[in-house]
């Protein structure tokens, strides 16, 4: 699982990652706790998943100004 901490644009992050499908990597939204969003992923390398999620968010026009954090969690 990965944890994304973002105060704003949470709906857009969820929509983006739920539809993410690149190089066989997928995410699915699990739950929201305050500013934290949790996503399951289909790969075992959570560090890689966190990096891909971060890159995908930063690649969006709305994501380029966000201050957020993505970390792997068990």
């Amino acid at each position, binding site marked *: 699982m990965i944890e994304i*901490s973002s105060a*704003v644009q949470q709906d857009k992050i969820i929509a983006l990652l739920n539809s993410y499908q690149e190089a066989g990597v997928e995410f699915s939204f699990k739950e929201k706790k305050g*500013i*934290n969003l949790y996503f399951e992923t289909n790969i075992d390398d959570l560090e890689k998943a966190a990096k891909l999620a971060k890159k995908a968010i930063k690649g969006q*026009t*709305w994501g*380029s*100004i*966000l*201050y957020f954090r993505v970390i792997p969690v068990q």
Partner: protein
Amino acid sequence: MNALTAWLERYFLPIATKIGSQKHLVALRDAFIGTIPATMAGSVAVMINALIRDLPPQFFDGYDGNTIPIIREIIEINGYVWNGTLAIAGLIFVFSWGYNIAKAYRVNELSGGIVATAATIAGITFSFSGGITGLNLDQSTIDAINEAGWSATATEITAGGWGWLPLSNLDANLFFTAMVIGLVATMIYVKLMLKDITIKLPDSVPPAISKAFASIIPATVALYVVSIFYFVFSKFVPDMTFLEWIQKTVAQPLLGLSQGFGAVILVALFVQLFWFFGIHGPNVLAPILESVFGVAQITNVNLFQQGGAELVISEGYKWVRGSFDAYSWFGGSGGTLVLILAILFFSKRKDYRTVANLSVGPGIFNINEPIMFGLPIVLNPIMFIPFLLAPVVSVSIGYFATIWGFVAPVSQQVTWVTPPFLLSFLATGADWRAPIVTLVAMLASFAIWVPFVIAANKMDATLEENKAS
């Protein structure tokens, strides 16, 4: 808080997104970032010179690094590094600027950089002149000087020459002119490229050649338009170059404005506001932080290289980009290293103490994501006031300490991950008073954070009581 977030997303974020994703502003930010390899290398050279040339005389009478073998050679080598970096920082920037504009429009980036550089340099004076009066020259000396191409009379010498690019036109002084001319020239080039007004070569021609040929017409038009502008400008304003005019009418007033207490506080406040609401403050405010305070910093670094701290104090800017790092953003924006200490001293909350323990290491190097999101500070109502107030107070302390001459202005570019006290010491060209100012600013911030950390204890206790009942 949900209503506030919704309001932000509906009304504020679209504006911030527009600013943060506006092609030219993004290109401007990236242009400044692109110069970092050169400006940091130059800053390292100036800093080493500060440590081996300028710092020791403060403690050892008669020390002169320029006379000590090895030290002397190192100083000289650092001079070469400076020549190729900070001495021509504006020139490096203008290439980066044109490159990034072209990149934003997905046209040949290399040609974009070249067009911006050529167009900006086209308006720079290639000649110099100067003179000495009050002399008493004999005839043979006068004849020799006149024969050499300068002009001499019995009482004065007027020296002039052509074929020289003055460094004062290529360093930080060039930035504002580069921003204007570089933008205009590159945009003309970009628009013509996008309209496909280009020379087309057969597919059999190698890509590098066909790309360069495709840029010929747009680049030529851009350079001619800018050159015609310079020509017309010189007819209306014959006494100064466009660069000198921009410096006088735009750059100096703007940089002067940035030195006011209100402007400094406003920037500090806005950065905090952005962070608090989960927006990357320095990213959105990069056009101001880098193009105003960043340019002021490069000016100070160059002044330091030329005349040490004394020249910076007499002619430099008091508050520059690195001043925020030195006196306010210890541990990251918000001065969160102090919050970590306040938690470790006063917090009784297990969750706070766990996050603080995990955040100490990164915090020493001014990385504050663990505390910002772990506590969290972002969108945490109880943290709102200290997160905004503490940096305002610490910036004020650093500002007035510098303005009143208690500490030298920041004159070195130090990477932001340098630990707090060392950062301010190095940033001020090894002024031993700077860490003391940082300490005072930290203590003031500490005093602001502590009541809120204690209040958070009480909030936690209340929650526990509620649970128990």
